[in-house]
């Protein structure tokens, strides 16, 4: 499924406290979390972002805490995908598990400007910058990770495994 939207650009080491500050960790409702998304980095982000928009960041995106509230907040406020030069590993797993599209491309980060229009073709691993006409290739997923993404996240993946083990 293609994702198309405007780029919101952030720098290196965007930590989970910036994505969703600790004071909101008693909240589990994704809608409520979405209202505070990226609050630490840009107070108005949640009101500016439109459904399908794409967050583009530098190295080590999502570093810090293991809080799944971070990818949940991003997904719930409409972010269609996160492209980063690199991801912190727990954030990457969490995003894959909850079905938030994450792609690694250093080149896409370097060559994308704020508000450029991007088109992502996840099954091809292709990121197109429709504003500049440039095209980037995202790092491929390991087969097992691709399987979880294909299943729609870890919940359907585990459900399938539990069901097949009961047969």
């Amino acid at each position: 499924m293609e994702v198309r939207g405007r780029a919101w650009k952030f720098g290196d080491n965007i930590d989970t406290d910036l994505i969703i500050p600790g004071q909101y960790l008693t909240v589990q409702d994704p809608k409520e979390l979405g209202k505070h998304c990226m609050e630490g980095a840009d107070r108005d982000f949640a009101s500016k972002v439109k459904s399908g928009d794409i967050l583009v960041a530098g190295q080590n995106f999502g570093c810090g805490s293991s809080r799944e509230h971070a990818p949940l907040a991003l997904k719930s406020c409409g972010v269609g995908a996160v492209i980063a030069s690199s991801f912190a590993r727990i954030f990457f797993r969490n995003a894959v598990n909850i079905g938030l599209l994450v792609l690694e491309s250093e080149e896409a980060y370097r060559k994308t400007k704020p508000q450029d229009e991007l088109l992502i073709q996840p099954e091809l691993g292709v990121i197109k910058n429709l504003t500049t006409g440039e095209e980037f290739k995202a790092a491929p997923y390991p087969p097992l990770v691709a399987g979880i993404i294909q299943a729609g996240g870890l919940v359907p993946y585990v459900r399938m495994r539990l069901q097949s083990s009961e047969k």
Partner: protein
Amino acid sequence: MNCARPFLGRVTKFRGVRSQMGMTITEKILAAHAGRDKVCPGEIVEVRPDLLMTNDISGPIAVDVFKSMGAARVFDREKVVIILDHFTPNKDVKAAKSSSKMREFARSQGLVHFYDAGFGIEHVVLPELGLIKPGDLVIGADSHTVTYGALGAFATGVGSTDLAGAMALGQIWLKVPETIRFEFKGKPNRWIGGKDLILLAIGRIGVSGALYCAMEFGGEAIASLGMDGRFTMCNMAIEAGAKAGIVEPDEKNLEWLKEIRARRGMGEISGNEADGPWNETIVRLRSDGDCNYKSIITFDVSELEPQVAVPHLPSNVRPVSELKDVKIHQVVIGSCTNGRISDLRAAAEILKGKKVSKWVRTLVIPGSQAVYKQALEEGLIDVFVDSGAIVSAPTCGPCFGGHMGALDEGERCVSTTNRNFVGRMGHEKSEVYLSGPYVAAASAIAGRIAHPEEV
């Protein structure tokens, strides 16, 4: 149910098979838990963890996800630990609801290891309960799960959904990490603890310097470091992006475990017959001489000054002498990083017979009830109260801006915790400086960042 087969309480066997190059301790533990003779960095393996852990932040989501996966029972009710420590004692009604949910789950699943509010901070409590031993594989829904590497275990953090999947299946996938070896040479001076050594390392490699890697700590200064200091070091491996921090098990580790287990009436640790005596097992666990490190980074710490990480990254590390003009408003001594008995002893050594500045709120938070009781018996709590510090029940509380000790705009805090990100402890324009307990206590007295010899 093949994939959800309980992993019975046997001791994992570490095979002595050697093929081609040797393995690091991390690779050995992952191989053993994947049922393999050898694994290589970059490979993805499915492992059976010895222990899973969650808390009052990651747990409520994990419980919902667990149910939505169609799972009825956890794979093994002796291997799932729930501990309520982040917003406890309940900060507000929302926090109370999170705790209630976890209590109910623990009860309905018949979990053996449920620890309610005030018992202590997860990463202080689990080791002191004797639940982790060298060679174990632990998965926790908290990024600081890496702490247990101090015991020669492989321990890493995941999110709620991964934890839910592991509770259902008894299995989880992991990519075998490359290992970076950190050698600490020399005999550091008396003010240097685990915090200074790990800050030094993070300062050198940066907050993504060990991304996806295991950080293996060794050398003369680690051999002489106590277990509490090793917990501090492994705890902060995540701040360099690492998947795990680990120290190869030694006699000190074994003695510590024996004492803990004896105190709790747990008896001797015994390997199975094929493994031979436990002290031989831990020798086999150590990284092979011909193992393949991604890199080896060496430090001479004999002249090292206490280290402080300035805002807003744990890698912005400076020697304390460069920061003496920094006025402060609060000090926090505690957390999963530095809330153990050695940390409180260090703070009390500085605070004894002195007063904290009337302009510095000083919070001392023992990491667990056991640490609290020990501190009471040693008279440390008297020292803190007499100095004007506030002593709280064990909680993660202020470390992540959860509750207690929130900072106002423009305020600065010296904290023995692990993160100094923007807004971490309150207002987005407040600042956190990370240090060990000696510097934190000295700064509380001085009202500014201070070397322990200044007070």
